[in-house]
C-alpha cells in the first residue's frame, strides 16, 4: 500500500483534475490499479474502448451518486454501501452494453461485470467522492475514467498493431508482424514494456530520480 494519493485541502479546478486522472495519477500506468481488464480485453482497440467507456461511465455515475447521497450513508457501512452503488451501476451498464452492442459485448462481457471489483473505482469514492463537493467529484471521476480509457486504448493499439497488423479492424500491414502480442502472454509483456516506458519518462522528467507511484503493490 505504498502509493501516496495527494489530497488537497481545496478542490482543484476541472482541468487540473482531468489532467491528473489522465497523466499524473493514471490508474493503469502510474497507480497500477485495476490491471486485470487492462491486459485481458485489450487485444484490439475496439475492445479497449468498450471497456474503457464502461469504466468511465461507472466511475462518473458512482462518484456523483456518492457525492449526492453521502450524508445518508452511515460511516460504519460506508464500504458495503459504496459496493452496492457500484454494483448497481455496473449491472445497469452491463445490461445496456449487452443490449446495444451484442457483438463486441460477447468478447468483453465477463470483464464488464468484473468492473465491480475494480479497486480504482472504489478507491476514488473513498479518497475523493466521499469528501469533496459534487462538481469536483464529477471532474475527478471523469479524469480517472478518461485516464483508464486512454491506457486501454494505448495498450489496445499497441497489441492490435503488432499482433494483428491492424488498427480498429482496418488492416495496416498485410501480414501479422508479431502475432505473439495478440496472445495472452503478449499482454503481460505489453504492460511491462509500457509501464517501464512511463517510469523512464517520469525519471527523465525528474532528472534521474526514481519515481514513487508505480512499482509498489498492485491492486485490483
Amino acid at each position, binding site marked *: *500500500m505504498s502509493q501516496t494519493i495527494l489530497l488537497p485541502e481545496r478542490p482543484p479546478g476541472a482541468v487540473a483534475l482531468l489532467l491528473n486522472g489522465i497523466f499524473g495519477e493514471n490508474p493503469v500506468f502510474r497507480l497500477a*490499479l485495476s490491471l486485470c481488464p487492462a491486459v485481458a480485453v485489450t*487485444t*484490439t482497440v475496439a*475492445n479497449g474502448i468498450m471497456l474503457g467507456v464502461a469504466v468511465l461511465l461507472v466511475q462518473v455515475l458512482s462518484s456523483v451518486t456518492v457525492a449526492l*447521497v453521502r450524508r*445518508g*450513508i*452511515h*460511516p*460504519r*457501512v*460506508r*464500504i*458495503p*454501501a459504496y459496493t*452496492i*452503488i457500484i*454494483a*448497481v451501476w455496473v*449491472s*445497469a451498464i452491463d*445490461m*445496456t452494453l*449487452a*443490449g*446495444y452492442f*451484442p*457483438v463486441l459485448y*460477447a*468478447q468483453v462481457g465477463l470483464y464488464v461485470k468484473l468492473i465491480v*471489483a*475494480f*479497486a480504482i473505482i*472504489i*478507491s476514488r469514492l*473513498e*479518497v475523493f467522492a466521499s469528501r469533496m463537493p459534487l462538481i469536483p467529484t464529477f471532474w475527478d471521476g471523469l479524469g480517472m475514467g478518461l485516464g483508464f480509457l486512454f491506457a486501454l486504448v494505448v495498450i489496445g493499439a499497441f497489441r*492490435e498493431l503488432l*499482433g*494483428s497488423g491492424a488498427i480498429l479492424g482496418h488492416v495496416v500491414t498485410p501480414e*501479422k508482424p508479431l*502475432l505473439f502480442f*495478440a*496472445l*495472452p502472454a503478449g499482454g503481460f509483456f505489453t504492460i511491462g514494456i509500457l509501464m517501464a516506458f512511463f517510469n523512464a519518462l517520469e525519471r527523465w522528467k525528474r532528472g534521474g530520480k526514481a519515481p514513487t507511484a508505480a512499482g509498489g503493490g498492485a*491492486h*485490483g
Partner: protein
Amino acid sequence: MSAPAAGSGGAPGRAAAGPPTWAPGETWRIVLSMTLICAAGAAILGGVYLGTERYAEASRQRNERAAVTELLSLGSDATVKEIRQFLSPARDAVIYRTGEAGADAGGNGTAEGAARAPREFVFALDGTLLRSGEIASANAGEKGLHPLGRIFVASRDGAPAGFVVEGEARGYKNRIRFFVALDREWRIAGVRVVEHEEDPGLGAEVATDWFQGQYVGRDLDGAANLDVTKDPMPEDWRDALRRRGTADDPAWTERYGPLRSRESDRPIYAVTGATISSRALTDGVRATILHFRRRWELLEPYLRAAGEGA
C-alpha cells in the same frame, strides 16, 4: 478491492471505529439506509433490464433478418419465414414450429404473412409424423424444449430463394454460433459467424470474410465431405479471397471464378495457429447441412400441404 480495505487506514470513519460501541438507534439507521440503497438499486436495475431486454430482442431480430437477406443476396422485398426446431423434453421427438417467435417485434417492412397462426409439426426420431396442427402461440410450452437451431426460408415473388440454417459448434474458447446459407440448388451461398469468443488474431479469424469465403459455392456432396487442411493456402487463392467482399459479386466471379472452381473440391485451409477453431467451424457447418438435409426432406411435403411451403 484490496486497496481500499487495507490501504485507507487514514480515513476518518475507519480510524474512529475502534471497539464497537453501538448506540441502539444507530443500528436501525444503518439498516434503514442500507435497505433504502438496496431498494433504489433494485428498482433502477429492474427498469434498465426491462428497457434493454426489449431493445436487445428487437435489434437481434432485425440483425438476423438483415444477415439472412444479405447471405442470400436478396433485396428487402424478400419474404423470410422462420422455422424453429426443438427436441422434445424427453428427447424422443423433434418439433418444428412455424410462425413468429416475437410477433410484436416485427414492423421492419418485410411482408410476413402476419395473419397466419403458428403451426407445429412433431416427428418421431425415425421420421414418422406424430402430429401436426395449429398452436395457440409460437412460444407455447417452450419450457423444457431443447432448441435445435432455426431455419430461415426465404422466398421472393412466391418462388423459393434459399435457406439459412442456424448452427452451433464448440470452438476453442466457447461456442461458435453461425448461419449457413444454401441457395436454391443447395449450394453453400455463404457462412457467417454471428457469435464467438475466439482469440483475436487467431481463432477470431474464422469470423472474417476471407475465411468464410472459402465455403461458398460448394455443392451438397462437397459440403457433406468438408474437411480441414493445415497446408498453407495457395497465394493466388489467398489474394482472391482478400479481394472478395462479403459476397461474390459479378466482377469478382468473372475474375476469380476459375480459382473458385479449382478450390471447391479441396478442403478448407485452416487459419494459421488456429486449427481447432477452423476445424470446429468446418465440422459445425458440415453437420448443420447434413442435419438440415435430412430434416427438410421430412418436413417439406407437410409444410407444402399445409400451405406453408416456400
